[in-house]
């Protein structure tokens, strides 16, 4: 049977675009984090896993293990902040950071325990999931990467890999060995140009497109977005005009965690996510990011869509070679990049 059969090709394309949209979101997060902090963020996929599994735990009426994780991270970050403030002799800042941590942590604990019971509407659980997963981004940055902000890209990568392994282990401890599936946000099918598509996959494509549009507006129109872009272009120059690199890094990680958690919520209904599912999903986003050279947002998004499409076509024609085809894609891209782009030192500051 031919892949270009009119009854086959549109289905494969729609399927590839659905997955590609999620990969594109992840590749944008990877590019963003790398451009601002020079961290190749290996654990991006773990946010996907945490997002999907936290919602699944809430669905089962349980208090997800991610709550304790956020609180523990908050505690470590507060200790770090207090130590830094006291060293600088700023008692008021130390006191404030403890106050914020107690208020924020207490509120999160209270809200989660109040809403974790069965019977809460789905959209409340979705918001609660975001509330539990998104703060992990800036907190992990504060605890793991901010103390390393002057380290080389290699050291940052090593820390990133270590964090990925730690988060995978935590996923196993929090959610168990077997995966979970979350309920679909949209049931049923739609007919578009003679092809039957599930509403869920249309939702995935739609939300991804909206999110990308939102990011584009954020970077183009808001002060915070412009500050992030400035940091990405030239860290030293950004600092000279008053942009704190810590604040920029923290914001980049917040966005990365938000994008990861949303991606998890989007693909959660179509497949069972397990504690170890995050890495391969993140890796496919990474290939997209590499196609964009880790600097270009549009190229990364297009690259990730390409990964989704190639994956879909390859799974039809040569399913046993699918992973080989998808991951070999990176070789010609790297070759072309190394030949076409001018070399520049990684430590130019």
């Amino acid at each position: 049977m031919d892949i270009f059969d009119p009854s086959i090709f549109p289905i494969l394309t729609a399927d590839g675009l659905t997955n590609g949209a999620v990969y594109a979101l992840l590749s944008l997060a990877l590019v963003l984090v790398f451009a601002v902090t020079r961290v190749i963020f290996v654990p991006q996929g773990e946010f996907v896993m945490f997002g999907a599994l936290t919602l699944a735990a809430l669905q089962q009426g349980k208090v997800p293990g991610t709550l304790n994780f956020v609180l523990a991270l908050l505690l470590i970050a507060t200790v770090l902040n207090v130590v830094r403030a006291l060293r600088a002799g700023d008692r008021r800042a130390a006191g404030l950071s403890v106050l914020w941590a107690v208020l924020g942590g207490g509120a999160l604990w209270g809200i989660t325990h109040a809403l974790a019971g069965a019977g809460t509407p789905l959209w409340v659980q979705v918001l609660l999931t975001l509330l539990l997963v998104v703060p992990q981004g800036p907190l992990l940055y504060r605890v793991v990467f901010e103390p390393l902000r002057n380290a080389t890209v290699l050291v940052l990568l090593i820390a990133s890999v270590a964090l990925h392994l730690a988060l995978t282990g935590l996923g196993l401890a929090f959610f168990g060995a077997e995966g979970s599936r979350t309920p679909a946000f949209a049931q049923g099918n739609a007919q578009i140009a003679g092809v039957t598509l599930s509403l869920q996959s249309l939702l995935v494509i739609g939300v991804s497109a909206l999110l990308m549009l939102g990011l584009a507006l954020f970077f183009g129109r808001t002060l915070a977005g412009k500050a992030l872009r400035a940091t990405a272009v030239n860290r030293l120059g950004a600092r000279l005009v008053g942009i704190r690199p810590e604040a920029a890094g923290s914001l980049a990680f917040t966005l990365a965690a938000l994008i990861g958690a949303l991606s998890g919520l989007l693909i959660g209904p179509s497949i069972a996510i397990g504690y170890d599912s995050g890495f391969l999903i993140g890796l496919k986003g990474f290939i997209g990011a590499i196609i964009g050279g880790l600097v270009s947002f549009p190229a990364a998004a297009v690259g990730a869509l390409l990964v989704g499409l190639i994956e879909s076509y390859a799974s039809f024609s040569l399913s046993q070679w699918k992973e080989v085809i998808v991951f070999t894609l990176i070789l010609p891209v790297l070759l072309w990049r190394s030949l076409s782009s001018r070399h520049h030192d990684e430590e130019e500051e």
Partner: protein
Amino acid sequence: MKRLLLTAVLACTATALADVRVGVIVSGTGPAASLGIPERNTVALLPQTIAGQKVVYTILDDASDTTAAVTAARKLVQENKVDLIIGTTTTPASLAMIDVAAESKTPMISLAASESIIKPVDARRSWVFKTPQTDALMAAAIAAHMASTGIKTVGYIGFNDAYGEGWLAELQKAAATRGLKIVATERYARTDTSVTGQVLKVVAARPDAVLIGASGVPAVLPQKALKDRGYAGKIYQTHGVANADFLRVGGKDVEGAILPAGPVLVADQLPATNPNRKVGLSYVNLYEGKYGQGSVSTFGAHLWDAGLILQKAVPQALKKAKPGTPEFRSALRDAIEGTRNVIGAHGIFNYSSSDHLGLDARSRVMVQVVNGTWKLLK
């Protein structure tokens, strides 16, 4: 973790006495964790004394990794001086542990599926036994069920790893003997976010039935995709999905799936005359009493069966030698090989010098997912 520490402490304090020492290696973390965790949980249910002799269990985690399993086996043999190794969960790691068992002349009961662990019984494998049914045994049951319900053509979609390839090989053998034709073979990865491409191709080949060669909750994905594409034929799964998580995640999507499984999965539906019913029920009650309603899976029962075999073999070995000596280990091996008619949760074990699996057709039943539970097919 606490239990691991406790076991370690117990092992240290008990070294002065000549207790029977059993080393257990399971995959408590890593890809095989969903199998390894119920196995580890089952150790706590095993008897603390056999024939008046105290039994000390030391549990190690191999993280589903072959190298870690071999290291753990050497540690058990050299530092803990165990008389028997039970484990490990996965086939590749169990194969690698055979050398440790043979070198140190320590009997070993593997909890992994593949026939290559115990066949052929050569000088090295003479120390190695196993309790789970082989893929060959289960594939034969599937092929027999297909043939008896008038199925002529079969499609296959399975994992692109050792599990899926092993099942494909066994299906091809079993199908050849039953005159079934395999019309499509497709692979997917357990972390794939979609199998639409593969399923389109399987459906296009119009098979009477499809076998999904996958384990755990990732096995839900192809069955859901087949239904989404309007496939109306029979869908078979392997015994790798026989746990509660598969039903929980699969929900309506896995309704109607047919699979072979150990009798313990449907112990309460077995006729009263079935010898496995009583053993299976007592294991289920023990396990659920400790870990909660619905927590039991068939994987832990493989370790339970190893424990039953041990309880039969230790008294005989004690007559010949003292625990902790090479003579005891040798006597224990002979006693295990002499196992006759030990009724386990998964079947009836009859080991011999040429058969270290010891199971026959009584070790499997065909079940179907009906209304979200396992139903025994008559």
